[in-house]
């Protein structure tokens, strides 16, 4: 029934937006909030429902950087590379994390789907540069070491969780 619930959610989203093609971006935002990414079949579905061509929906979904057509990791790390952070060497953070998580520019998600690493242009926390955000949580005044620690904490917490579920 889980899928049905989600599917009905898509319907609800499309309906709330009046089946209106001009509401495409809010629809995609809401759908992504529900699924964490934009599955192809859902995009086709949206296209049919609001009466535009799938190619156009695809075009919109790939234009905006916050939309993703691939599932992202459970933890979505975005290192700020806005001007303020850049001058405070934010790319060092990024490189350190890339190394730690064994990622490359072309491969931004870990195989276990735990982390996705990206950059972002300014989080509005410039006073605390360099900054990064993990899911909703923003961290400021970072060093590569501190960033690594944050990731370690998550990895540890995840390991615990897993143990817990096993014990259960």
């Amino acid at each position, binding site marked *: 029934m889980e899928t049905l619930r989600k599917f009905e959610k898509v319907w609800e989203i499309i309906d709330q937006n009046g089946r209106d093609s001009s509401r495409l971006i*809010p629809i995609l*935002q809401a759908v992504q909030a529900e699924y964490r990414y934009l599955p192809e079949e859902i995009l086709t579905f949206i296209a049919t429902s609001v009466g535009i061509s799938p190619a156009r929906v695809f075009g919109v979904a790939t234009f905006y950087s916050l939309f993703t057509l691939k599932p992202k990791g459970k933890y979505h790390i975005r290192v700020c590379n806005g001007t303020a952070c850049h001058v405070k060497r934010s790319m060092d953070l990024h490189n350190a994390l890339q190394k730690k998580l064994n990622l490359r520019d072309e491969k931004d998600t870990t195989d276990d789907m735990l982390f996705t690493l990206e950059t972002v242009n300014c989080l*509005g926390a410039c*006073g605390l540069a360099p900054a990064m955000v993990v899911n909703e949580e923003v961290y400021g005044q970072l060093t590569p070491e501190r960033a690594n620690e944050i990731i370690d904490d998550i990895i540890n917490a995840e390991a615990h969780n897993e143990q817990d579920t096993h014990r259960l």
Partner: protein
Amino acid sequence: MNKTLIGFNKIKTDYIAWENAVPHRVLVCAGTGCLVNGSMKVYEEFVKTIKEANLNVIVELKDEEGDVFVSKTGCQGFCQIGPLVTILPEGIFYTRVKPKDVKDIVETTIKKGDILHRLLYIEPNMLKVCKETSEIPFYQKQRRFVLGNCGMTDPEDIREYIARDGYVSAARACKDMSPEDICRTILASGIRGRGGGGFLTGKKWDMARQQPGDKKYIICNGDEGDPGAFMDMGIMEGNPHSIIEGMIIASRAIHADEGYIYVRAEYPLAVKRIRKAIKDAYTLGILGKRILSSDHTFNLQVMEGAGAFVCGEETALIASIEGKRGMPSPKPPFPSQSGLWGKPTVINNVETLSTIPLILSVGVNKFREMGTENSPGTKTFAITGHVLNTGLIEMPLGSTLRDMIYGVAGGITSDDGKPMADGFKAAQIGGPSGGCLTKEHLDLPIDFDSVKEAGAMVGSGGLVIMNKNTCIVSVARFFMQFTQSESCGKCVLCREGTKQMLVLLDDIIEGRATEETLKILEDLATAVQKGSLCGLGKTAPNPVLSTLNNFRDEYEAHVKYKYCPTGKCKALTKFTIDENLCKGCMLCAKKCPVNAITGERKQVHRIDPIICIRCGACIESCTFGAIKGEKL
């Protein structure tokens, strides 16, 4: 006097009466910066601790009960030293407040009225301890006009906005002023758009006003994509009602009945606060049908961006609201003729709109007292880079760079944050679309026209200060990289041109360039500037052209002598190991990705310059500082 104003008056008198009845108020900064620093915990700690101290704590003014009123505010601009806490009525200004400090504050300051010196701000240059903001140079040298309420009021409480005379200007505009009156007044104030273009707001409105048709739109541009600028965020988070009020006035001036606030999605807090503000305004009849007891109708909604810098451009923003790819389209037709859904549309920046109610309330003359003849008023800047105090500031237009760097920002620092006398090299103003100013511009009045003449742009107000150790070519490359990756890809010159400019800059930085490279770069930059479709492409070459202009030697050093004067370009640096310092720890050899370093344990190591790819990894690994980069 009409119904709304009576209602407003009641809200105002109640609020002030209750406010006066509560002896203390604690303002905890809850802007993005301070939140990141944990100010929410500080806030909660206050509520808890005060309660535990057997004082009556309130978080919302309801009646006259309460000993301490604790509220959250928007950003106060000085996030670097946050979380910030202000204690009223004394105005004591505490910095870097941690939850563990709260107990002390409650005991010492609230209960006894004494000052906790360890939490006060110490002015680093003079080592002066400052009790309140008026003593801190960072604030002293500013003129906080638009940001006046930011950090001093609770942005989520519409009653406080009204208590500070909010929505009075909007009510006047809707009832006592004709659209022509409003346009005339705004034109007379001389305010120019704060979003980058510097276009006369009054003129823009008047053009839209004169367009025929009964459906028009007003859009607030809160996309703020300039990386490293967060002025508009400060206003959206700290004083959202001022934007709504500005939009109401604009809607009345052009006869629009519908509006959008387009907010950058990376600003979740701003979105939340604006949504709340809109909801509250509807509740009080400030938005909707026949607002503020006038015959004017105005509906407002929020649209969140989805991550595209180019959507700050007007026509792209409109496309985005219409559910399309955010690709700009040629102007003419201008949005004021044919904008959203083909209807006349006015698009204004957040700061512009937020200034409008103030212009009506202080009057044109008072407003014009600030700023210069052709650039009246104040302007906010996000000052970052190699300065002691980074943050969000507001200055009268016409202030000098010197005022800002040395007056407000506390002077230049080295890379590791230490003061660096005489360290100023350049200031990039206007973000990726701006240009760079140098020493000779330190006393240039910063206003729309003078900055443009100097080959840069006030832009939206991003201000990056760079010290002498900054490689100017790398800076240009950074901005180029940004515009290149944000190009929408529609027009050839911008899509392909910025890509090739980046390739050329990489050639320079990585030692592959010839003198021909500079010429091609300059030709290409000029073509992209002159021929691109929208402002993004037209301004993308600015950082390159202005640095080429101001720092030609530095480019030539890279190209002709394969030498980076600041030693920042690793590919132009020769890495050597100092025999006297090397301890033979082998760390560097392990780090080297191409095995260019050889040596036995406890023996001096050597780098083979032929194998070395100059990645710089070794230099960072050596804990003895034995590895040096020098001119090739």
